[in-house]
């Protein structure tokens, strides 16, 4: 049975399928067809959820922080430094730090992913709000807008391009970093990649899962661009 030894241990994803799969070819479409339903599609959906929840929570936190930091410089410096610090922690190290407290759970993953979104979201929000021209603000005040009206009707809409630009970067980078979540939980597109790495680098699975992550990031970015255009028709005027 020497050929079995040469083929390595029998594993679920590859080794007993087509000739392409047995020889670990670059891209085996038959494997893709066979495992879309049980491997790739669930991983894609999980990945989407992990990323969407992280960006959503990150956006909400960053927005509240920006409301404070935008008017009060000392707070801005503090919040900015904290967000900078969080951003510099390598993701694997952050997972390791969190596991003793929150375990091998979705919570651990989301805390890490959210931390990484804060810097770019917060900075873009504050820059956008501060970037509103002084003459526009003077006109708003001089015409009798209250502070709340000025914020809602003038500052926020004018900051929107910067805020949405931040959202795009945060979304794309979160989708990318979320593959590392598989170190903690068997979810997302990182999971099939890890399994394939374990199995003599089964190329098809790595390429398929990796490709899906890229496609998801591009699709999300494209949608946000469309949303940005619809929301700020004036910026193209």
């Amino acid at each position, binding site marked *: 049975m020497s050929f079995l030894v040469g083929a390595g241990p029998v594993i679920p994803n590859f080794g007993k399928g087509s000739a392409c799969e047995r020889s670990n070819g670059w891209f085996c479409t038959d494997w893709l067809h066979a495992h879309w339903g049980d491997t790739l599609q669930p991983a894609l959906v999980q990945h989407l959820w992990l990323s969407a929840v992280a960006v959503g929570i990150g956006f909400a936190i960053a927005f509240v922080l920006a409301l404070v930091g935008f008017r009060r410089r000392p707070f801005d410096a503090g919040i900015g430094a904290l967000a900078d610090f969080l951003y510099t922690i390598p993701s694997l190290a952050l997972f390791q730090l969190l596991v003793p407290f929150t375990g091998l759970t979705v919570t651990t993953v989301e805390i890490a992913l959210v931390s990484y979104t804060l810097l770019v979201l917060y900075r873009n929000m504050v820059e956008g709000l501060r970037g509103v*021209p002084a*003459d*526009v*603000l*003077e*006109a*708003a*005040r*001089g*015409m*009798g*807008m*209250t502070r709340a*009206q000025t914020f809602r*009707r*003038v500052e926020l*809409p*004018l900051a*929107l391009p910067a805020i949405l630009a931040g959202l795009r970067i945060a979304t794309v980078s979160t989708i990318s970093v979320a593959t590392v979540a598989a170190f903690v939980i068997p979810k997302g597109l990182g999971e099939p990649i890890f399994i394939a790495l374990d199995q003599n680098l089964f190329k098809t699975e790595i390429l398929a899962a990796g490709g899906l992550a890229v496609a998801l990031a591009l699709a999300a970015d494209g949608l946000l661009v469309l949303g940005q255009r619809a929301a*700020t*028709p*004036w*910026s193209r*005027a």
Partner: protein
Amino acid sequence: MPGDAAELVFDEATKQYAGRSNAAVDHLSLTVPAGEICVLVGPSGGGKTTALKLVNRLIELTSGDIRIDGTSVRDQDVVQLRRGIGYVIQQVGLFPHMTVEANIGTVPRLYDRSKEWIRNRSRELLELVGLDSSYARRYPAQLSGGERQRVGLARALAADPPLMLMDEPFGPIDPIVRARLQDEFLRLQREVRKTVVFVTHDMDEAIKVGDRIAILRRGGRLAQYDTPAAILEQPADAFVADFVGADRALKALALHTLAELELRPAADGPRVPRSTTLRDALALTIEEHADTIAVTDEDGRVLGSLTKDDLLR
């Protein structure tokens, strides 16, 4: 919403910033009758813009008072006060994310006017400032500098305020467009008859636009407050004479037209309509080497003649 025109009174109005030796505006007292244009003019550091902003309380008075139709600005809610005052600034400050119509509708919207009302009002105001109603849907970035100034003016007029504050409204515009905007502003003012406080650093603009001119000197003290003709003909002191310029006699000529003079019998010479200013007519005699001009009515019929000396008397 407001309406009509209001009398504006500065009563010993003073703004003193903490830590400065000189006041920005120093015991300024003057009355702008309802429906008149008062131009604040003077060198930089004269407190013109400060005086203007004391009215809508973008800057708060240190002492003294400012009253609009008898009511002190101090006694009014600051937001309500500002909504009742049209405000035009040099950089215009149009909202870039709003269409021209939405910009014009800013204050009416604060008064909860309906979309329908705002649409009609913005068409009406666009026409008043000389813009086609197709401009309503454009964004400020799609307008020229002069067009933006017009929209800024329309926006300030939207709620029909009894008082307008204009801070160098035609400042950054090139001279030709600027002259046209001044003319149109004066035509518009004949229609709407608002009380206007108009800040400029340009004496020629002050003479052209103002019913009255207040000249402020450094430290925000009033040097003279009078009609353009009185300031040109009887400057109160050396500072005013100097500020008005050595050519004040020429400037004074721009305040009068040929129609105000008694004509001699018809004679040969370049034909000039009687609505021409004495200054322009004099320039023509120099340019044409003419000693006599033929004065015509609006249809070009000769009414009589004038000599160069008649113009200078």
